[in-house]
């Protein structure tokens, strides 16, 4: 069979297209232009906003296929994978990119297995190989200690997931750009699910860590639970999200969803600030791809400085309040100037 075009797996929530989709467009455009083919997007949901679908076209997608049914409003692995395989057989994509999200990291392996094809997780770099036109997929391995470049020479589609926030969302190229939007109603037999979603418990306080552009991490250096507030104040001043090392979570100072690292979340924000964080390899595994890294630690030999762009060697109980105040005052001044 002839496989063609680069496809992305767009994601939606309550009918709205999520940011990861726009990041995937950035990745996809790079490949489709090099490959000289179309960029297409598939999305599963129910009652997806027409304007959001057109918006993907405006950002550079040539064809959007929206598969819609009430049973697809939330991710369920069986109906999603059945519908995705339906797209595979209808359109034979050459490349499929998905987000390394809870959905992408579950759906894509499920589909790759039944399609008997390769899938590379958590890619940080994607390119087309000159000559062979194979997709070159680069990803960190062994806790970020090494990078590996991987390809899928003999199987199609070539599938990869990329980390959220590892690329900028694609900008709008042209409002009302020409493209094809197809809305499909899946055959009801594709919608069978042995899993039932009976409820949802939203995250309590903090904004989702994966999505955050600025993350401030509290390490054991904060000494006790009362001092979390100090770090929270800094996070608030920066407009960032609070997170923690495992030692802080194990002590119950912050809950597990805050944990960054090998046994917690992998994040790649624009700005990472580590306060009283030593920078153990297991912690670095979850944050060293951050764009900018700042560390505040009293120990000049702390590992964290090895991966940092800017470091302050000092007592966090003195440095952090001074920093928070400075940022707040700065913001206050900016407001005054702009008025």
């Amino acid at each position: 069979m002839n496989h063609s075009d680069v496809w992305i797996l767009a994601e939606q929530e309550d009918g709205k297209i999520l940011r990861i989709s726009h990041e995937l467009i950035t990745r996809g455009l790079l490949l489709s232009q090099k490959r000289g083919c179309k960029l297409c997007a598939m999305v599963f949901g129910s009652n997806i906003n027409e304007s959001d679908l057109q918006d993907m076209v405006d950002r550079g997608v040539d064809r959007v296929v929206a598969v819609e049914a009430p049973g697809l409003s939330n991710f369920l692995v069986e109906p999603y994978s059945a519908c995705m395989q339906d797209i595979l057989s209808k359109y034979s994509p050459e490349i499929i990119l998905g987000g390394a999200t809870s959905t992408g990291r579950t759906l894509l392996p499920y589909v790759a297995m039944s399609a008997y094809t390769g899938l590379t997780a958590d890619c940080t770099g994607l390119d087309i190989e000159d000559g062979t036109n194979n997709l070159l997929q680069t990803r960190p391995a062994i806790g970020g200690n090494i990078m590996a470049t991987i390809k899928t020479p003999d199987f199609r589609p070539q599938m990869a997931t990329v980390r959220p926030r590892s690329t900028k969302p694609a900008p709008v190229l042209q409002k009302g750009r020409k493209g094809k939007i197809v809305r499909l109603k899946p055959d009801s037999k594709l919608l069978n699910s042995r899993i039932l979603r009976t409820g949802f418990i939203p995250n309590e306080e903090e904004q989702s860590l994966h999505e955050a552009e600025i993350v401030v991490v509290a390490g054991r250096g904060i000494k006790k639970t009362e001092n979390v507030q100090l770090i929270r104040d800094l996070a608030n001043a920066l407009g960032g999200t609070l997170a923690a090392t495992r030692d802080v979570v194990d002590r119950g100072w912050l809950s597990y969803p805050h944990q960054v690292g090998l046994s917690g979340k992998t994040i790649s924000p624009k700005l990472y600030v580590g306060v009283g964080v030593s920078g153990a390899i297991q912690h670095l595994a979850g944050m060293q791809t951050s764009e900018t890294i700042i560390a505040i630690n009293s120990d000049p030999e702390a590992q964290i400085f090895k991966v940092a762009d800017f470091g302050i060697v000092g007592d966090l109980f003195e440095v952090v309040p001074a920093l928070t105040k400075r940022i707040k005052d700065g913001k206050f001044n900016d407001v005054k100037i702009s008025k």
Partner: protein
Amino acid sequence: MRIIVPIKQVPETKSVKMDEKTGTVIREGVESIINPLDLYAIEIAVQLKESNGGEVIALSMGPPKAVEALREAIAMGVDSAVLVSDRAFAGSDTWATSYVLAEAVRKIGQYDLIICGERATDGDTGQVGPEMASYLKMPVVSYVNKVVKVANGKIVTHRLVEEGSEILESEMPCLLTVVKEVSDPRLPTLRGKQKARKADIPVFGLKDLDLDPKKIGLAGSPTKVVKIFKPKVARECEKIVARDEEKIKEAVGKLEGFLKKKEIL
């Protein structure tokens, strides 16, 4: 209730070294451990057995040495173990690994649950769980952070996603991949260790499983590693020592300037 727990033996992350010349990972002399995230899978499986009755079987694919990981699992309360090992399996990517493990699961026979770790610390893909489930045509619940209950052939779990936790009810048999929050792994007991030492652990090789030899090992793997290299972590750290009030003021000012330059503030 019959529960199968696939566990992987991985190198201790701290001690991983690279041969800079050849670009390969040096595995000799590196200490091996059970993939840390699989400990949570073992623990929740043992707890489910304790409350519902039944048995837990640990399953690992790897070199003969991986039997150590299986013995450790037995010491933690797992009832029995199976090692899947054959030179022909070497170099398998996640597709081929999942294929072999899934066929081993078939050979083990009837089961209600398969519980995997969320991901292995060496491969770090988190794909083997969902891929096994797909091959075995069973539902998968990934990122499980809580098992609420097991009743009437169904299992209720919480699944950790970006915005919170989903409450999902799945028919069994089903496959779970679990995150750390799901359980608090116990330490092996002395009795467990004795049992582990004596345990008879069967080894399944290529000839014992119903496998297409073209779909396994390096040759059968859809993905190929082209090259490995050391990441550029060489960040230029501007480090300022700030031990007194004056210095702190200066450092904080410089940091503010740095953030402005990066267009963060």
